[in-house]
């Protein structure tokens, strides 16, 4: 489904489906020329999971840590990092790797590595988080 969504966005509109790029372009103004398309994508992205969630049978939980400090630090890192590095899991990971883009492949290896180090480090510092 994720791949089909990316294929639809690419072959239909000629755009790369990267969550951080679509949102980031709205935030910093670099994507002002096609803001409506970006907003439509985000509306779909929020709305259908909301419907699935309220249907009950397909509901899930985010199991997010209750530690607000961690959440804010992580959010800042993710926002800053994806915009400096030009992509996140969908842009570099799905769209970049499938295009055999060297930048996408290198970025994906690096962020998965950094994420793995962080998970191990957290366990060392706080125990089971």
């Amino acid at each position, binding site marked *: 489904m994720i791949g089909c*969504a990316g294929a639809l966005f*690419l072959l239909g509109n000629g755009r790369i489906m990267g969550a951080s790029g679509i949102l980031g372009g709205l935030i910093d103004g670099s994507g002002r020329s096609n803001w409506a398309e970006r907003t439509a*994508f985000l509306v779909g992205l929020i709305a259908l999971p909301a419907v*699935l969630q309220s249907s009950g049978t*397909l509901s899930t939980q985010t199991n997010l840590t209750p530690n607000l400090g*961690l959440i804010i*630090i992580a959010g800042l890192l993710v926002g800053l990092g994806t*915009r400096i590095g030009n992509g996140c899991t969908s842009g570099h990971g799905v769209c970049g790797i499938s295009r055999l883009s060297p930048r996408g492949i290198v970025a994906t290896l690096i962020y998965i590595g950094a994420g793995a180090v962080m998970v191990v480090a957290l366990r060392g510092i706080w125990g089971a988080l």
Partner: protein
Amino acid sequence: MRLLIALGAGALFGSGLHLSGMTDTAKVKGFLDFFGAWDPTLMFVMGGAIIPMFIAWRVAERRKPLMGGDFPAASDPVFDRSLILGAVLFGAGWGLVGLCPGPAIASLSYGGSGGFAFLGAMVLGMLLAPRARQWLDRRSVVA
């Protein structure tokens, strides 16, 4: 029509993230936990997403987007400081709580106040990014 395609792609993407467990931070952390109780299932989610995209890129070589315009040009294989530092920062944040941008937006309706706090902080990070990038670019010119 462009808007409808964007809306449909967003909805399809969101439901894929939702159903595959990408919005469950415990599952994401399990995937990143290579040195502990590693849960590889999300690797198959990513692999499964790459296959249709791989075909789409092959198709893209031979035609134009349905709605006109051109496909985005491939970037030069330059591994500059911003790409690497950006990926390190993003990965660290991802590992810290288990949310990346797509699932953070997709789970907004049920992620509670923590989900909103994450999104707010992420937006703030995105606002600061152009400045950080300028600074990095200036430094790499000197180096």
